[in-house]
């Protein structure tokens, strides 16, 4: 099972990139998409809709735990709940982590959820996780060790600096990441590429690909339409396909 985490500075288009990756990989591999960004935009980008999130289950447990029958197997109970919130699609399934914790004690709940989500992931060949730059879910270990961490940047130095910070944060959190790559998104021209290449090298970041600014994608985004409608021939789609091929997971 291969885990790919897509992160990056807000506004760089990482959710769109994650959505395209899911679309491409799920054509050949059984894929689970996890939206670990509390803003939950990934489902929309994939043409799916989320009814409930893991956060809802967590909060729901705090409300219902005193009413459960005395000998309830809570882990089994959670597994049932989790199964109920996975949105099952044709090619991929999608799960949303939802909101972060409120006040109260989540030690036990998170412990159980961690175990269940790990078991769930074992049923898929590839898991793609869309997460914000703060890596909150990773730090809470509700997501485990990572094969590939892709950090998306736009044509800005700050985007690359965020990539650098994410790499450092992953180290500090003792998350085992096998490979880290930067993906430059919304690239306009050759000058952009040159500059980004140089800055990445300077920071010791490995740039794995450029995704050009794509009119068609921008139109879909503006209209709020899912990226499943993006044509295979579009420049952004083709660029992401190349990147996925370079990652060598198919």
């Amino acid at each position, binding site marked *: 099972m291969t885990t790919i985490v897509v992160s990056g500075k807000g506004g760089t288009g990482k959710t769109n990139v994650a959505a395209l990756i899911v679309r491409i990989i799920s054509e050949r591999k*059984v894929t689970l998409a996890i939206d670990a960004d509390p803003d939950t935009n990934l489902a929309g980008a994939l043409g799916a809709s989320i009814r409930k999130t893991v956060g809802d289950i967590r909060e729901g*447990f*705090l409300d219902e*735990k*005193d009413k459960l*029958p*005395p*000998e*309830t*197997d*809570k*882990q*089994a*109970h959670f*597994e*049932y709940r989790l*199964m*109920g919130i996975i949105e*099952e699609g*044709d090619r991929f*399934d999608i799960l949303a982590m939802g909101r972060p914790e409120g*006040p*109260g*004690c989540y*030690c*036990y*709940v998170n*412990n159980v959820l961690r175990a269940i989500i790990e*078991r*769930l992931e*074992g*049923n898929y060949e590839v898991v793609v996780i869309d997460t914000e730059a703060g890596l909150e879910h990773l730090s809470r270990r509700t997501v485990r060790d990572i094969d590939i961490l892709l950090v998306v940047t736009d044509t800005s130095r700050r985007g690359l600096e965020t990539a650098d910070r994410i790499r450092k944060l992953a180290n500090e959190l003792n998350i085992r990441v096998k490979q880290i790559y930067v993906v430059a998104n919304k690239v306009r021209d050759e000058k952009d590429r040159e500059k980004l290449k140089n800055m990445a090298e300077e920071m010791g970041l490995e740039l794995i690909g450029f995704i050009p600014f794509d009119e068609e994608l921008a139109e879909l985004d503006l209209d709020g339409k899912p990226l499943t409608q993006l044509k295979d021939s579009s420049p952004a789609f083709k660029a992401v396909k190349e990147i996925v091929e370079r990652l060598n997971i198919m």
Partner: protein
Amino acid sequence: MAEEFPFDISPMYEGERVRKGDMYVELGGPNRDGFELVQVVDPDEVEDGKFTLIGPDILDMKEGEAYPYGMIYKVAGEKLEKDLEAVLERRHHEFQPYMQGYMHLNQRYDIWVRISKDMVKKGLKSFEQIAKATMMLYKNELPFIEKMEAIYITDEEKVKEELAKAMEIYKARDERARAIHDEDVDVFYGCTLCQAFAPTSVCVVTPDRPSLCGAMTWFDCRAAAKVDPEGPNFPIEKGECLDELKGEYSGVNEKAVELSGGEYDRIMLYTFMEYPHTSCGCFEVIGFYMPEVQGIGWVDRNYPAATPNGLPFSSMAGQAGGGKQTLGFLGIGIQYFYSPKFLQGEGGWTTTCWMPKALKERVLDAIPEDMRDKIATEEDATDIEQLREFLKRVNHPVVSKWAAEEEAEEEAVAEEAAPEAAAMPQMQMLQPGMMPQMQLPAFAPPSGGAAGGIKLILKNANIRVEKIVLKKKE
């Protein structure tokens, strides 16, 4: 073993999920009735190995559809007692997932099963094969089952009918489980899940004393300890009962020494002021002792304002947590209010004086009727003065202690003071025979790991002051 069945059977298929696109049929689940039930019966009521199906069989079902599903097993054996039914039934959720291509989630009336298209392709034709594989697993694993029979139901009406009967059986089991008390068991359980934050904290979870965080009951700990013996839950032999009222057990004391790194050697389960149970900081409710009224107040995490002692939950949490036995504070789980042993070492509900209204309402049925109107909420009192007035007015049991105090001996116990003391105590001019009105100094916020602030405990004190002069330091 596996040769008789067209599907592989192994523990490695545990946790298997069948995706919607891969499923042949769904059984039970969120959209259909479903249940499983094990019944221990007399040997002449069971025909060993028999399988009965009421309703459509696998090949009669339409691909991609969802159906109701009831699985009833009758077992008999010399060593089998009715009490074991639930134990046997819980293993069903363990065994059925061993079948490759068969997803089984949860238990009782909340089961969710999916059979994969693959399973059918490989030769699954009938529920009989599923039932027989299940019974085989049971008998292999539990040799004291001498006879076992299965009845599967997929007919909607019949499932509804049998489900209603099963619900009564589950309910009766729950009643019996709720009736299990500390004296009925030999083993308590420990939970060290929170030790990451409080290395000396060990929760002792008993049938009458659920965990502070409210998430784990004695049953949960028992299950967790079995599933993961190296994990955060483990058995604690009760040992000898050293004090029934206060809840002191030799086994618990021994474990306390071991697990708290020697910090504590005695824990009492039903007390407040004597060797109380420690906590990490995850408790749902904090109890605080108010010496001015000689009673206890409770406040939950959700109550934002200050309690009559001047402190809100968040300030007291530091005193009550951190894995220390801080006298005067006790962290508990909400379910403890319902326990028959609730604070019995300290007079139970008769010492409770104050709770936030929302909390009181939530646990109202746990409060003895004659105490309900005697416990103040923020609507009755928000400070000690008002609280005393209220308690006197309703003639709360603690009021009788106030009278006794005037005749008792003096005894003052002061503990180490931290360098910063907060507000000065307010003193009144005393008339002979009058109770001193003392506002305890506010506790300094906890700093670092140690509990900060002053702890001043005056028991049975009778202070006579002629004059106090407060002068500003030049």
